[in-house]
């Protein structure tokens, strides 16, 4: 048995300089990079509302949240770099579409209530997905996830609180909150990925201790958490098939339109082009800052010994 196999069998952690199979490394690079890309693309739908937040309190909260998303992206790029890839190459892969990000961020944030719905549902789904990753077999990824999950909790709670405020507000505010939930519910369920039967890499990722629970298991866990929360919000979820299954002790829910997920993933979502366009523009517009910092460092001779 190789050292790697022994570590996995013992549910121990794999660390950067350990020997590992090429496919394990490649799978982690793909997953961590996609995760990092999702964090920084995820700044956009909510970032759109920073200048239009309805109060200084909400604006400060939203700024902190969007800054957290940037931070999460950086934790994850740092974790990916421990596998021997260069951050520039990862960004290049994002900008040219060779690597993906979560399809959820290709939906538009049409009203202020969308910011709240994203916090409650999208960050809520992310937490369900990410908590088990805090125990994944690759040390740097697991440590980044633990840090991220602590911060996501604030994201979800601020969204819930904002949505509750709107739901209990004027009829127009309540309707705006309901409309946002109606639009974000199904895409949030799609965040857990294709059904187990159509999830090609799942078995191998599970064997390697990267994945701890199946897509459908995590999706069900999320639905079971969200239904009572929606009730507390005084809002409905847009699924006529939602009903409590006494036997399973879980909520049954309707059929997910995975054709939509495939369409959005393959580039035909409402905002795919806008998101990448803005990301590339931000990178290019910031080039002079990076160049100036490097020139200053060279001139001062303050660069590190590396």
């Amino acid at each position: 048995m190789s050292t790697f196999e022994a570590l996995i069998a013992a549910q121990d952690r794999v660390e950067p300089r350990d020997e590992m199979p090429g496919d394990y490394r490649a799978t982690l690079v793909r997953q961590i990079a996609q995760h990092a890309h999702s964090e920084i693309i995820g700044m956009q739908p909510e970032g759109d509302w920073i200048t239009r937040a309805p109060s200084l309190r909400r604006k400060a909260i939203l700024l902190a949240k969007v800054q957290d998303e940037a931070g999460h992206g950086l934790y994850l790029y740092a974790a990916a770099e421990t596998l021997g890839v260069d951050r520039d190459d990862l960004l290049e892969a994002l900008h040219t579409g060779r690597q993906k990000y979560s399809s959820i961020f290709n939906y538009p944030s049409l009203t202020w209530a969308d910011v709240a719905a994203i916090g409650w549902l999208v960050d809520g789904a992310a937490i369900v997905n990410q908590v088990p990753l805090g125990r994944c077999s690759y040390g740097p990824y697991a440590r980044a996830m633990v840090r991220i999950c602590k911060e996501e909790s604030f994201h979800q709670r601020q969204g819930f609180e904002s949505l509750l405020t709107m739901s209990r507000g004027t009829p127009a505010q309540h309707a705006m909150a309901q409309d946002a939930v109606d639009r974000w519910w199904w895409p949030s369920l799609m965040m857990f990925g294709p059904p187990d039967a159509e999830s090609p890499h799942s078995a191998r990722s599970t064997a390697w201790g990267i994945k701890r629970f199946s897509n459908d298991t995590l999706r069900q866990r999320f639905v079971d958490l969200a239904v009572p929360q929606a009730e507390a919000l005084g809002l409905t979820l847009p699924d006529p098939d939602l009903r409590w299954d006494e036997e399973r002790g879980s909520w049954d829910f309707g059929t997910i339109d995975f054709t939509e997920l495939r369409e959005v993933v393959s580039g035909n979502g409402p905002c795919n082009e806008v998101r990448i366009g803005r990301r590339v523009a931000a990178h290019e517009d910031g080039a002079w800052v990076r160049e100036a910092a490097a020139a200053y460092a060279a001139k001062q001779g303050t660069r590190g010994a590396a």
Partner: protein
Amino acid sequence: MSDGSLLWEVFVRPRRGLAHTHVGSIHAADAELALRNARDVYTRRGEGVSIWVVPSGAVTASSPDEQDSFFEPAGDKVYRHPTFYEVPDELQL
């Protein structure tokens, strides 16, 4: 790196009385910017009272391949542990 930045390892002292602990890495053109970036990325919620940044290339590490032989000399020296010694149960020793 092509964007002119270097990779730095970041160590944070969570509070006085504790040692700096490795938390991750950061990109920056120089040490001063590395400190500022590290502050923004790793201490947004009061996680630290002091930060070290070290160029990643300046770290010399033991190799995991040699883990067994490298740490082997300590393996058979059980007499370095207090539990190795038998003393009367009734004494506080």
